[in-house]
């Protein structure tokens, strides 16, 4: 396959960037998108140019490190697939492919196609934990978990934190990420102790960085793990409930 690539190049976070056009020849249709970029970079290095910077790690769709907006769609045209698992057979010979980094105020471009995504870590820090006893591991199945709850929690926990939901959202909102991270704990018995405090803290932290949800559903379409926007509704419900929960003085005489 011979392809024309329009790739966003930006030397560093402070500089302006623009699209550079490159031609790559002899691409195998069995290559992944990132392997195709590797070929381009070999080509650039040989001709003495700076290679295109992009993030990648596991290249098997489970780490959430890679992420490119390909022809206007985060992670490209294949549904439920991270960029590293996208194969060149999804493109046609002679096609012009446009590649852009995630765009969000909270995800500033560091260089070329690399963005910083640490605000997602801030959301996790705010409440992505449970209180667990120390000591010996509890017996298996000691805590009964309904099968449906376990399944739904597992679906939410499939989130790899790539940030495609933010990239896809017309509002730059991180609701799908936050909702998934909240839901996989809130659905399980082990997550109940912090349920409302977690929801409130994680949503409040999310809102410091990201936009708000207008229920377009673009995030769900872009998500390489097909996480459902049903979890966003669950998060909204728990957030609203958290505002009504006040057990601080339950059963106590009101003093002061």
């Amino acid at each position, binding site marked *: 396959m011979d392809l024309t690539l*329009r790739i*966003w190049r930006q030397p560093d976070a402070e500089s302006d960037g*623009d*699209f550079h056009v490159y031609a790559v020849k002899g691409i195998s249709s069995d290559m992944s998108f990132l392997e195709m970029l590797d070929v381009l970079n070999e080509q650039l290095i040989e001709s003495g140019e700076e290679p295109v910077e992009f993030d990648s790690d596991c290249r098997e769709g489970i780490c959430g490190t890679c992420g490119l*907006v390909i*022809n*206007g*769609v985060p992670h490209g045209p294949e549904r439920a697939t991270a960029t590293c698992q996208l194969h060149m057979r999804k493109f046609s010979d002679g096609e012009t492919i*446009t590649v*852009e980094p995630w*765009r*969000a*105020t*909270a995800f*500033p*471009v560091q260089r070329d196609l690399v963005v*910083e995504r*640490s*605000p997602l870590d*801030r959301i996790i820090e705010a409440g992505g934990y449970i209180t667990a006893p120390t000591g010996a591991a509890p017996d298996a199945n000691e805590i009964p978990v309904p099968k449906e709850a376990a399944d739904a929690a597992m679906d939410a926990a499939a989130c790899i934190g790539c940030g495609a939901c933010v990239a896809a959202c*017309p*509002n*730059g*909102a991180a609701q799908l990420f936050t909702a998934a991270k909240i839901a996989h704990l809130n659905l399980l018995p082990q997550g109940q102790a912090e349920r409302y405090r977690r929801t409130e803290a994680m*949503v*409040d*932290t999310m*809102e*410091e*960085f*990201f*936009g*708000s*949800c*207008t*229920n*377009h*559903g*673009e995030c*769900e*379409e*872009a998500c390489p793990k097909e996480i459902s*926007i*049903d979890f*966003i*509704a*669950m*998060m*909204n*419900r*728990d*957030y*609203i409930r958290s*505002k*009504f929960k*006040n057990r601080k003085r339950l059963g106590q005489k009101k003093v002061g």
Partner: protein
Amino acid sequence: MSAATRTKLLPGDPQLDKADEGRPAGRSNFLVEFWRSDVGKKWLMAVSGLMLMGFVLFHMVGNLKLYLGAEDVNHYGEFLRELLVPILPRTVALWLFRLGLVAAFAVHIAAAASLTKTNRDARKVPYKSERDYIAANFASRTMRMTGIVIALFLLFHLADLTWGRANPDFVRGDVYCNVYYSFSRPWVAIVYILANLALGIHLYHGGWSLFQSLGWNSPRFNPWRRWFAIGFALVVVVPNISFPISVLTEVIGPCP
């Protein structure tokens, strides 16, 4: 930081550690708490939207009395003014409803304006290549536009049929003749039909979106949420559009 003045944080922002500064230690009134949060604002938008949906539905049902003739619809107008008499003085119940509606409009519009700013801040640098939206539809992408069209039409509609300033033949209390003379002007009929189409598009997304914002999500009724929005939009808009057409085609006869 207050929600009104907040712009989005960047990763590593020195503000980051002060995110909670200025927030009261305890709980405020839940409505104040909601207004501070984007998720809460969406809840307020959904609730005020539901109130406004209730209004447009009953407004349409009341207007159907146009088909029963001048006496019936004018009698219905008088019924609204005499609602809850003698418990309340004449027109007081009507004014209470009107105050509720004004409040709902104010909350709905203020929240929309505030969230629009939040969402613009969340992606200050837009995508440089063309985005390819998958799930977002025409209705969801044009909520702000259809909302503005409805608000402007509402002002004209009040001037036309409530205050009478935009209707040279206006006679206070004579509902049938006011409607007849107003819609006899073809430009008013066209403006009315276009505004109702905008309302229908707004309801197509809003009537679905409110379920997500309120956290009303269950596999039991999820498939019905879209049908509810479509059905509600049609039930309100089709009869509404029939009124000016009926006047112009003389199905609704001339003023007696």
